[in-house]
Each structure stands twice: as structure tokens, then as C-alpha cells.
């Protein structure tokens, strides 16, 4: 009978060597999905390669340029970080929605991204905040934008031997804020039926000068929706522009019917969430000096 090894490399280079040498090995950080699936017999890797012992994968750094989140940083560490919460409230809200208090103590930002789930709560807010993913592999380092990281349900741009090391987010301009909303039938411990993240920048007169909109759980991957952003830019986030942004988000959605929701329902609700998230982000940006 097959046994599963446990490895805990101390450097990125060691981790890369291990996964390159053993295609059946799996990287793991929090293990909140991987270990559950393992116990259910979904997969049987030859080894678990624990990334939490690698210093550069764990931790938060904020400076004038922006934010660096180590890929294996636990959700709870992020939600407790004051500066990150102040600058990216929508992202932190999303991190705070993942699983439960216990799961947030283990689950990591990189894990949420690398799962490649169309419904991941943190991916859409990373996208609207122009996050870049730092990937290291046998060929060295490369950077991929968050909106390009997930390519299909469960699939990412990571090639054999590659791993996500960190996520970089540029410091937001003045009067810029984000928001994320998701719909679940319960209040927690659930997976998004639909989600929407919005980031807006307002000028002194309250006119939106820049915007990004991303939607979750309504397409094979989290989706940047430029049409929805265009509906907001140049407006004061009035009802009509919000309505047009909602319509653009609904139009961009290509959801499926499944046990969590119907096509029609998801399409409609993602618009509602987009409108509400845009309104929230606008209020936050407007409240800044």
C-alpha cells in the first residue's frame, strides 16, 4: 500500500527541487482543502511539501510601494493587520469570509489562489487591486497578474516545478477603496454562489476616475469585467451608472447550473452584488481626504 511522505523544506529552492523531482508530490500550506480531500480519498500524493517553514513565504510587508503578502501567510494574520485593513478593506473582508475562524487560522492567501476555484473569495479582490503573483520555478522567477493566474476550475498558470511565493499589491492612489460582497445562503461556512469585487478612485468632486470590477463563482474562473468598470468611470456612481455596471457584470457572467445555484439566479445576483460593492467602495473612497 502506498504511503505519503511529509517534507518541510527551508528554502524556496529546496521546495522547487522537491516538486520538480516528484510530480506526484503536492505543495501544501494551510492544508484546509488538501488534507480534507486527502482524507476523503480524492487524491493520494506521494508527499506533502509543507511551505510554512520557508521564511519568505510567510509574512506581511507594507511600504510606500505597496503590499507584499507571503503566499503561506494565514488568513487570520492578514485580517488582524491594521494597515492592510485600512488600505484594502475589501480584500480583508474577503479574507475574513473564507471558511470559519478556525479555518482562517490555518488557511492561507496563496492556498486560496492556488486552489484555482472560480468561487475563491480572495481572488476577485486581488484582481481589482491589481495584484501580481510572484512565481518561482526551475527557470527562475516570473510575475503573472492576478486576473491571469487562474485559467479554469482547479487549474492555474503554475507549471510543473513552479510555486507561488508571494502576492504584490501596489499602494492605492488617494481616494481609492475596494469592497467585496459574496452571496451565500448561510451567514458563514459556505462557498460563494456569486461574488463581486470593486475598486474605485474618486476625484475631489466625487467623480470616478478609475475603477476595476471582478466577479466570482459565475464563470470558469474569477473574471475581470472591464465593461462594468467603464460604466463607473466618469460617473458619480449614481444609480444609472451603478445599474449599467450591474448589467455589464451580469452580461459577462457565464455561470453553470449546479447544487449551489442556477444560471439565471447567479447571473442576476452577480449584478446586484456588483452594484452594492461599487456603492460601498465609492462610499469608502469618498470618506477619504
Amino acid at each position, binding site marked *: *500500500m502506498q504511503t505519503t511522505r511529509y517534507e518541510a523544506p527551508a528554502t524556496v529552492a529546496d521546495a522547487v527541487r522537491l516538486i520538480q523531482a516528484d510530480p506526484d508530490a503536492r505543495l501544501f500550506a494551510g492544508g484546509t482543502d488538501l488534507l480534507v480531500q486527502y482524507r*476523503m*480519498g480524492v487524491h493520494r500524493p506521494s508527499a506533502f511539501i509543507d511551505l510554512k517553514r520557508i521564511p519568505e513565504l510567510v509574512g506581511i510587508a507594507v511600504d510606500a510601494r505597496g503590499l507584499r503578502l507571503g503566499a503561506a501567510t494565514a488568513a487570520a494574520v492578514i485580517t488582524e493587520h491594521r494597515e492592510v485593513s485600512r488600505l484594502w478593506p475589501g480584500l480583508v473582508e474577503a479574507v475574513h469570509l473564507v471558511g470559519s475562524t478556525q479555518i482562517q487560522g490555518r488557511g492561507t492567501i496563496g492556498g486560496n489562489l492556488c486552489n484555482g476555484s472560480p468561487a475563491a473569495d480572495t481572488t476577485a479582490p486581488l484582481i481589482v487591486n491589481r495584484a501580481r503573483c510572484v512565481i518561482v520555478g526551475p527557470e527562475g522567477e516570473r510575475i503573472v497578474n492576478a486576473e491571469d493566474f487562474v485559467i479554469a476550475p482547479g487549474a492555474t498558470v503554475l507549471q510543473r516545478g513552479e510555486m507561488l511565493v508571494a502576492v504584490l499589491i501596489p499602494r492605492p492612489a488617494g481616494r481609492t477603496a475596494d469592497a467585496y460582497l459574496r*452571496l451565500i*445562503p*448561510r*451567514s*458563514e*461556512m*459556505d*462557498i460563494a*454562489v456569486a461574488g463581486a469585487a470593486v475598486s474605485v478612485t474618486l476625484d475631489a468632486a466625487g467623480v470616478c476616475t478609475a475603477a476595476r470590477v471582478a466577479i466570482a463563482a459565475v464563470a470558469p474562473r474569477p473574471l475581470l469585467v472591464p465593461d462594468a468598470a467603464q460604466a463607473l468611470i466618469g460617473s458619480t456612481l449614481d444609480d444609472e451608472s451603478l445599474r449599467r455596471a450591474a448589467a455589464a457584470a451580469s452580461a459577462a457572467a457565464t455561470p453553470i447550473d*449546479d*447544487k*449551489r*445555484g*442556477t444560471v*439565471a*439566479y447567479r447571473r*442576476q*445576483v452577480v449584478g*446586484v*452584488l456588483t452594484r452594492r460593492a461599487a456603492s460601498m467602495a465609492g462610499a469608502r473612497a469618498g470618506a477619504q481626504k
Partner: protein
Amino acid sequence: MSGEQRFKYVGTRPIRHDGLDKVTGRANYGADFTLPGLLHGHIVRSPHAHARILAIDTSAAAGMPGVMAVITGDDIPKTTARLMMGEGGFDLGDMGDNLLAHDKVLYQGHAVAAVAATSPELARAAAEAVAVHYEVLTPVMTIDQALAAGAPILHDGLTTKGQPAAGVPTSPTNVAMRMELKRGDVDKGFAESDIVVERTFTTPMVHQGYIEPHACVARHGEDGQIVVWTSTQGHFNVRDCSAGILGIDAAKIKVIPSEIGGGFGGKIPVYLEPVAIALSRKAHRPVKLVMSREDVFRASGPTSGTKVRMKLGAKQDGTLVAASASLYYEAGAYKGSPAGAGAMCAIAAYRIPNFFIEAYDIVVNRPKVAAYRAPGSPSSTFATESLIDEIARRLNMDALDLRLKNAATEGDQAPYGPKFGPIGLREVLAAAKAHPHWTAPLGANQGRGVAVGFWFNAGMNSSATVSVNTDGSATVVAGNPDIGGTRVAQALMVSEELGVPVERVRPSVADTDSIGFSDLTGGSRVCYATGMAVIEAARDAREQLKARAAKMWGTDAAHVGWDDGTAIPLNGAGDRTPLTVNEIAAKLAHTGGPVIGRATVNPPMAGPGFGLNICDLEVDKETGVSRVVRYTCIQDVGKAIHPSYVEGQMQGGASQGIGWALNEEYIYDREGHLENPGFLDYRMPVASDLPMIDTVLVEVPNPLHPYGVRGVGEVPIVPPLAAVANAMRDATGVRFTDLPLSPPRVLEALATD
């Protein structure tokens, strides 16, 4: 009369004796038990919902190193025996076929073989090596599919029992039973009605959702002596079912119950124990079987999905005059849904002179249903209470006034036949009217619903002993696994009778060798029936203590009275100094040896219970998401022995009912594969989904119990389905007839309304 009784201990709220172990994680549950040489079992389950088993090849699995036993349906004898239990009974042949299928698999997850090996991983690998060849058959997944002409038949030998409908073939059929309840002239009743409402309601198959999966360890000795450690609602029931199915004497089996992490009716049937015994017999080593959560959802016993067509007629003044209903309940793979109970409960709250109710028990390719809190009543009550709400709206009457006008009371003939004794429905309705919740203002997008519910509450067999220790403390032993705080309730009863403080009473759940036969924990019967045995046993011990006091005084026992833990001299005993329990206990060895009070009872099923819920719901009309913002449960509990655990029963039942109403459902694909066998997508409410649930205990004593106790555990799940749906109607203007009220369904209805 019980109502005038004064209590010293009953009605107080001491910390339960098993509390610390439970909140610190020290309590031992089914999967915690282990033995030297323990083997781990794994069950091979059918991937198909409906298939004929052509062949099972176990040779590869049996040949794997570390695999000690492999068994199939051939190791479980086919039997036609039945085991009586309470008002129902078990068909042990069906139960055995459910343990390990003999000829056909009848639902996805149906067990077909089992292995025992030296590690759980090896057992799983061996289970995967068992090759089963199936002829896949068309599954019958719904009531309509089961009743359709030419429907695939699950059981060739099944015939319609009870009162088959005229002109409908009784064989071959998927209708296992049909029954009728009738009174008066229903056509005339509707003709005389000023207002008639009629709708069809559906409720989905739902699971009890107990936290602890089924688990057991069995050891079969070479001498045929068997010990089973298991998490169950009834260890005597496990013993007798295992003995009956395997064809061995009950006296060969000792069953030791663990603590139980919830059951709600679902831990009554046996799923694992006889299989573990058969594996252990073959392997000559103890065997442990533990279900995964997925196994629990796929292959334990949820409750029926239902379809109820109901019609009610009323006069302009709100007087109900006629009711008719057709109830269709899914039994799952084998006969035995709670359709009959659903029929009997449907209109039990009301005086309706003319009615006709028919109920059908229908087999489908889903797991065999088990009991679930007031089995059958929530679904039929959902229909009744939704229509009552509609009548109140049409007549512009207060929903509580309409119910009060028609409420059943003592002396009324219940729809199922006998006359009600003292019942508390009117008192419950009056308490609702007086409650501030009923008149509190509602916020935007909020609605309020109300509904009542009824359940019988069982009697059945119970045994208890009460021992007095030489230091004056006492031990009470009974045979019912403690699910809802029954141990502390039993200790309180002993305290009341003996005058021994509750912390000096140790309540204990004994194994099948250590106490007399006791029916299972269920039917809301433990505080009532087992409580009765405990009170009688304590009184027996008290009489013995009085006799010992007489001996110490040198008088006749007739001259000894008793007051709050003290033997007092009566006329004829002169001026002797009263003796406390402690003083009498210290001399037990001198006065004749240990004192053990004992009692066995089998009281009638009695003490019908009524409850009422008020629900405030807030609806997001753009997303269909709803949230319960205020909830109040009012119930006639007879007499609350430990009020905290009575309130806990009410809150727990309401929570489960709210989940049933809002989000819970078994979701199958067309081939009969369950798509949500886990708590992620089987959406029970989590703590943050619910507000603090308010409770009001109404106490109309049950004359059949010495303290007036009624069963309280089941009534609480009956009203919520309609209370929530009625609140949704109030908030949105839409009458919902199909549960659950999930966001997509609500939004769709709001869009088309």
C-alpha cells in the same frame, strides 16, 4: 393533582453531571473506543441507485496482506423476523438487507460488502479491491416516478398493506401501505363552507444532521460471547436487532453504549453493529467500523421527502368545517415512512367535524428513512398551518384568534380516534397572544409567521434502580442513552423523592447486562417513562429506608413518615428522634444490608404535546436571501424537570426546523447520485444564522405522570416549517408551498409574482 405539587429540586437548573466532560472534550463517543488487536473495517458501497448484484469477487481483497476478513450479504442471513418496538416495529429482513445487500442495491451508498484489516488505510484499499458486478436498473427517485404507470418496481414481493385504494393494483407496486382517517361527511362539509382553500405542498428529504457519525466496535469471542461498544439511541435495541438478524440469542450479546453525539431518531436502526460482529466472528479479532460524513448522508436514515395535497373549508366566522388531505411520503429503499403519523398529526390541533385523510407509504431509490423528531408531523403540519394562515388572511382574522376558535381541548375527539385528556393548546395560544413578540413592530422587508404543532409522545418499556450508599449519597441507574440531559433530570427526580441533594446523586446509563430492558431513547419518552421508573424506584428505596428507620427505632414501618430526606415518627412511634438519610444509610449494614429500589414500567402512550412558534423573517428581495431575525417557541411541557434542557430541546428543534424550511435538502442527479453528502452543501444553519431563540414554558400537567411530565423533545420541530413559510408570505406577499425557501427559489417566485 400534579399542578398543586410543590417541588424542592424539580424545576431547578443544576449543572449536569456529564457536562464538564463534554465541554472539555473528555467524554467518550462511539469512535473513541479501542481494544488491543483492534481491526479496522471498511464498507463497500454501491455507486448505483438501483441495480441487481450479479456477482461479487472478494478474492483479491481477501488475499491482501493484513486483510483479516471479507464478508458480503451471504454472511447476513435472510430473515422474515420482526422486532416489536413501541408503536411500530422493525422488519429485520429489510434491516438485514440494508446492512449488506443480498440481491439488489436500492440506493447509492447501499452496503454490499465489508472488510476488516489491520489499518484503516489497508481496509480502504481492500474495499476498493472488492469487485462487484451490477446490472444497472432505472432508479425511482421521486414519489411521482414511483406511482407512475409502468414504474420500475423496487421489491418484487411488495404489496400494499393497510387499506389499499380501490381499483389500484396492490402488487407489483411501490406503495407499501395506504391508510385512511375519516369522520363525518367531508363533501357536505365543503359544501357548507364559506371559504375553501386547497394547495399541494412538498418538502424535501432532509437529514437529522447529528454531529457524531455512526461508530462501533464489536468483539466476537471463540465461545460465541459478543460485546459491542456503540453510539446508539437504544443499546437494547442494538442487541435485539443484532441477535434477530444474525440468529443468535440476545443473551450472547452485551451492548455498552458510549456517549452519543446526537441522534434525533437517526441512531435507532442498526447500520454497523451486526456487520462488525460478523467481521469479528470471521477475523477472530475485535473490529471497529466508523462511518464517514459522506456515508452518514448517503446511507443512514434521513426523513421522508413528501407531497401533501390538502384542502380546508371554513365558515365566514372562522369555524373550520371540513378537511381533506392526501399524503405521499417517501420511505426510501424499504417500506416504513412516517406517513401514518403524518396523517394522524395533520389536523390534530383543531376540531374539524368532517374530514378525510389518506396516507401513502412509498418506496424509492433513496436511503431507508429513519425517525426524525416527531416523524411525519412536520410535513403534514406545514400544509395545514400554511392553509390556516391563508384562511386567516382571507377572512381578515387574527391568526391566533382563528386558531383559538378551533383549538382542540380536553374531551375533544382526536382525529385518530380517542378523546384528548388535559392538553395545553389553548394555554399555549393564550401565552402567544400575551407575548410581546406577537405585537412587536416589524422592520422594512420583514414578515411575521405563526404556526402550531402536535406530537403524541411515547410510553414504552423502561427500567431503573436507585441505590443508597452508606454515606447517604445515591446512585440512579437506567437504560437510556442520555441525549438531551436525561441523566440530570433523573438525578433531580431521585433528589425530590429521597431528599438527597442533586450533586450527591450519581446518574448512570448502564449496559444491557446491568439494568433491565429499556426501550430506546426516542419518542420524547425518557423523561416521561424512564422518569416514571426512576421515581418509582426512588420511592421503593424510600420505603426500604423507612423500614430501616423503623428497625432502628424498634417500631413498625407503618409508624414512619418521610419529609425531605428525613424519617419522622408518626403516631405510634412516640417521640423518637427523626433520622436523616445519612443516619439511616450509615447503619444499612446493621439493618439488613444494601438498599436498592427498583422499578420497571410500560406506561401508555400519552401526554400529547402542543407547541407554537412565532417567526420574524427579513428578506432581501434582490437576492432572495432571508434571515430569521426573531424567533419565539411556546410549548406545553407538562412539567419541566430541568428547565434549561427543556428550553434546549425547544431551541434545538426550532433550529432544525428552520434549516428544513430555509436551506436543507437532499439533491440527487437523474441517475440517483446524491450531490451534497456533506455539511458544505447540505446547508444546516450555523450558529450565526440564527438569533437567540426565545422560549416560553407552559405547564399543563400530564395526569399520567407523577410530576406531570410530558414529552418535550419532538414537538419543537413541528411548527417551524409553516412558521417560517408564513413569515415569508407576510414579508413578500407570496405563498410558498415547496421547501426549502432557498434564495434562488424565493427570487424566482418574487420575479414571477
